[in-house]
Every structure is written in C-alpha cells, then in structure tokens.
C-alpha cells in the first residue's frame, strides 16, 4: 500500500492513464486503439506513454474512422483480446453507433454467451471546456437506453482509476464516460501507488445529509457538493449520491438515501428531456413513493443543442439552479 510520502497530486487524466498502464502490464490481451492515442498520447494525453512502453501493436494509432475502430475492436475481442477504444470526443463516437448498438451490446446475448465482448469504449463527454460545436455533447442517454451495455462515469481521480480498471476487467462492454472538464481535477491520490478497483454498479454517498438527496454523476458531482455546502446557509443539509454507474443502476444506495431524506433532485448536464434524469426520477418514485414529500425534481441542461463556448455557462446546471430546485421541494407544506 502507499505510504504517506508516495502521495502527490494526480489528475484524473493521469489516473486513467495509469489504469490502462497497469491493466496492460498485468494482461497482455489488453490493447488500446483510437485516433492519435499512440505517438501523441491522445488529444487529452490520457494514453500518454503507452505506445512507448508497450509498443504500437498494443497502443495503436488507427485510421480516422470510428466505426472501423469499434468494428475491428469487435473482431479483436472475438479472438480473445480486450480492446480499450478511445473515441476522441462525444460527438465523434456517433459514427460507431451501429457497431455499438447492433454488435457490441448484443453479441453475448446473440451467441448465448459463447462470445462475450470485453470492450471498453472510452468517451470524453460533456461541456464546460469552451469547446466549439460537436465537442461538448452529453450522450449518456443513448447508451443507457441500450440493453447489453454498461455505462460508467467517474467524478473523482480515485474512481477514474478504479472504475477504468473494473471496466477493463469486465467481460461485458462498458461505455466509459470521462467528464472532460474534470480531466485536470486533482487529488492527493498517487498515481504511483496501487489503487483500489471500484466496483461497477455501486453508487457512493459523497456527502451525508438529512434534508434531501442530490442524485448525480460525473461532471455534476462537484457542482452538487458545492451546492450542498451553500445550502447549509439556507438550513438544508443535503446528501449527495454519486451514481458512478448508470448501468447497472444502484437502486439500493439511491433509494436508501431518498427514503431517509424524503426528497430528491436529480442533477445532470445532459439535456433534461429524454435524459438520464427521467429514468432516475421515475424509478426512485416507483420505489419510494410513500417516502416522498415532494416529486423528484430534475436539474439538467436545457433541451437545446449544446451552446457555443461563450454561452455555455447559461446552459450548464450550476449551484444556483440546484438550490432553486431544492427550494421547490415543497418545504412549506411540511415544515
């Protein structure tokens, strides 16, 4: 285990790199492929150094074609490899949609388990980095709606490592959503120290509280934690649940929290309509109806194409919008 002196700040991007590096070192069947992942180390430098350390056959710059990348990864998995695919940005994963939906997600089921698809599709997602159009989509709703996929997204440096290790180890495909604006977020977790594998399918309570539960994930976790701090001034003690895994969904942790607090707000950056929040609010309501003092509310991106850089701050759910939603949780009726 790490000693105190090992510890130095590490970024989420470094933690992800370390997760791939450790997995590649342990398991020769792990291969990384994508656009610019080799020599350059990826446009976000998440694969930095892997080609050098493991060779270009293990970390491969592919031709520029996302369906080709994921499609060849399917073939590699058929032959027993564990491909980790990088899509350069959220919107640039769309050309691979057919391969993902019609093959990656279904192959195990189609073949009665004979042919699993241990593929990780890493997708940098979300906004807040001043990217021009097509560089800030939150595409999680598409993946959540596809049976056969697991969908995972870290909010902390530690989880970035732990969840990616778990994703690579999983025999089933994982869409691994990386919140772009947290790539450079830091913690005192040391990339040199072995770190724990975080289980897929387990949410975690990031902050305990008694007044209401904020249910969130990925880039919105820090927003919710900040909102919870701010809410103390208004007299609300908010619990913050970081889902980490959208599929499978951890009903247990979420419902335990909501039953305790009696109120909940789902917070995410993706457009609200048809987004993850609908599913989450609906299942929480189905399971906790008689514990609810107010309807589960949603704070989400607006139902619009992602805005240009100079306007994105008005689109992204921030602390104020979260607090507004908390305020609408029908406190008067109860207090």
């Amino acid at each position: 285990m790490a000693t105190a002196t090992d510890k130095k700040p590490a970024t989420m991007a470094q933690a992800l790199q370390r997760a791939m590096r450790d997995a590649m070192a342990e398991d020769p069947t792990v291969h990384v492929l994508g656009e610019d992942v080799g020599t350059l180390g990826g446009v976000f430098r998440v694969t930095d150094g892997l080609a050098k350390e493991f060779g270009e056959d293990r970390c491969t710059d592919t031709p520029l074609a996302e369906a080709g990348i994921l499609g060849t990864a399917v073939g590699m998995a058929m032959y027993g490899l564990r491909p980790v695919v990088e899509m350069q940005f959220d919107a640039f994963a769309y050309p691979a949609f057919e391969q993902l939906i019609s093959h990656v997600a279904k192959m195990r089921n189609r073949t009665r388990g004979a042919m699993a698809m241990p593929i990780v599709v890493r997708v940098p997602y979300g906004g807040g980095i001043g990217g021009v159009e097509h560089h800030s989509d939150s595409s999680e709703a598409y993946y959540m709606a596809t049976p056969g996929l697991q969908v995972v997204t870290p909010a902390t440096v530690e989880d970035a490592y732990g969840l990616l290790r778990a994703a690579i180890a999983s025999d089933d495909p994982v869409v691994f959503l990386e919140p772009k604006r947290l790539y450079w977020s830091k913690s005192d977790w040391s990339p040199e120290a072995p770190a724990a594998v975080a289980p897929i399918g387990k949410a975690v309570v990031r902050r305990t509280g008694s007044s209401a539960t904020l249910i969130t994930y990925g880039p919105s976790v820090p927003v919710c934690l900040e909102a919870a701090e701010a809410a103390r001034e208004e007299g609300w003690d908010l619990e913050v649940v970081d889902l980490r895994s959208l599929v499978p969904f951890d009903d247990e942790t979420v419902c335990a929290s909501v039953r305790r607090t009696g109120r909940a707000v789902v917070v995410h950056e993706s457009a609200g309509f048809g987004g993850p929040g609908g599913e989450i609010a609906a299942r929480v309501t189905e399971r906790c109806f008689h514990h609810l003092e107010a309807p589960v509310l949603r704070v989400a991106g607006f139902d619009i194409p992602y805005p240009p850089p100079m306007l994105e701050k008005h689109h992204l759910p921030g602390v104020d919008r979260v607090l507004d939603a908390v305020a609408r949780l029908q406190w008067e009726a109860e207090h």
Partner: protein
Amino acid sequence: MTVQELPGAAAYRPTPPPAWRPRTDPAPLLPDPEPHRVLGTGAELDRALMLKLYAELVRGRRFNAQATALTKQGRLAVYPSSTGQEACEVAAALALEERDWLFPSYRDTLAAVARGLDPVQALTLLRGDWHTGYDPREHRIAPLCTPLATQLPHAVGLAHAARLKGDDVVALALVGDGGTSEGDFHEALNFAAVWQAPVVFLVQNNGFAISVPLAKQTAAPSLAHKAVGYGMPGRLVDGNDAPAVHQVLSEAVARARRGGGPTLIEAVTYRMEAHTNADDATRYRGSAEVDAWRDHDPIRLLEGELTARGLLDEDGIRAAAEAAETMAAALRDQMNADPALDPMDLFAEVYAERNGQLREQAAQLRAELEAEAR
C-alpha cells in the same frame, strides 16, 4: 463471355462505362474487365477437388431448395436463398483451413454448412428460436450477419489479432454488391490494407441489392476496382465457375497467410430466386433475364466440364444427387421437430451476471409463466 455479354448486363454495368482513371494513369484499365475463369479454358483440374466441389454444389442447391420449402411450411421465419450463387458459397468454405475464420452475411448459410456446421444450428437464426445457433469460436464462423457490411471490420480485427498473436489464421469475409456501398466496407478495407491484415474480402455480385441493380449501386467499372483505392490487389472472377472462385480465393488466402496482406475479390454471379421468400422479384426484373442466367448455371457449368473431361459420369451424378436427397430428408425431419424453447432464456447472457433490474424482470416473467401453467 465478357461481363457485358452476361444476361442483364445493362443492369450489371453502367453504360457507357464511365471514364474513371486518374490523370496520372499512363494506360487505361479495361473498362469492362474480363473475369478470371477456369472452366472451358483447358486448365488442369484437380480431380478430387473438382468432385468435392461438384458434390457440394449439388448438396448446396438441394439445401437451398429445402430451406425455401421450409419457409412455406412455416418451419423457417425467412430464408434468403443462395441458389445460383452456390459456387461462391462452396468455394468460400473449401478455400479455408480448419483454423481460419469465416465471416458470413445473412445469405451465406450455405457457406457455413459447407464448412461443416450442423444445418440446424446454421438455420437457428432463420427459424427464429434463437439468434446465432452455434458457438462461433468452436466453428470459427462468426454469426450470420444482417446489418450490411458490419461483419467486414470484425474480420479485419480478428485477422489482425491473430497476426499479432503469431497465429497464421486467415479471415474470409463475405459481402454482397449492395454492401460495398456502406461506410463499413470502406473502413474495413482501409484498416485491412494499412494493417496488412490477413483477410480476404469476397464480394458476391449477384446483380441486385433486393430490387436495386448494380448500375444504381456504383459507377465503377467493376467492384474489384475498388481495391485500387485501398492499395490492395483486386480480383475479378466468374462467380459461377466454382474452380475459378476456388482458385482465386485460395491464392488470396495463401497470400494473406504468408503475410502478403488483404485481397478484394469480386465474384460475378446471379441470385436466381427472390431476395428472400418474402420478396417478389417480378416487380423488378424479367424472367428472360433469369432464364438467360440458367445457361451460366454453376452446377451445369461444372457438370458439363467434368463430364466432357471424363472426370464425372452418370453414376457420379446420381450419387451426388442421392447424397443431396439424403441430406435434404434429414434436414426436413430435423426441422419438422419443434425446437425446445425456454422463455427464461430472454434473460440469459444479456450480461455475464444479471443486474438488479433483470433479476426483477426475470422474476416477473417466471411468475407469469407459472400463473399460466396453473
């Protein structure tokens, strides 16, 4: 016979042939290239191989007929027949070694069966009791693939993985003329060429993508010419000349195996029946065109040549027909049995482990089934 002389050539080839060559080309390619042929050329033939090809062609045609009959009896949900294309199907199966992989499309049940796959397992998808009816790894046959051209990158990835591992395994991927228009075709061929992957692409140009003739599909002088843009060899072969298809495929497979990279092969053939039993081909082509192709039938071609050369006689013909009948009778019997069905299989193998919601849903279905049973 050049391609232009084939029945229905107008639909096959754009007329006039488009100017296509890059300015830097010092000499024109043939605008209507002559496909590679063996039958009728006086080439030497390997007797054992020819008889094997012949027997499989006859068996294959009977298989197609039986499968189509099974659709009428409600024993198959649908069947896309490869009647007329048996030379491609059979040659594809025979050109591969045991350790090689076949990547068939939905039309290539026959190739899988000719490779030795149990016919019932091969027909599971089309009967409808499950999707893929066999273990692809056991037979080295990827699932029969419906989304067009999506199997091509799979073949490339598998071949590439095998080469990285040091195995001398070759992947053979089958696709239709229509499938060449899909983006996945392009991406697969490009990856294959860049990686010099040991993969062979066989395009069965059967003249149609459902109702759409090749002339509406491409303006290229031949589909084999598409190889040029990827930097791989392109071959054009008479797809009804079984020894020719076998030869061209075998060469390409050998080339791939010795590290020479991928090859694109266009086999010119014809789909004698409708797209599937559910299709009505009279809506888009005349019977004269179909009839004309009967003169260029793969079985007739091979039978004629083998008979003329004294490699096949009446007895041999009868024996092949009888073996095919036996196979068909067995298939009919097997397919007339209702498959065992377990509705709970819906939840099997969605993931390695069932998650919470699938456990709930499985419990719901089980309760429903129990209630029904009571």
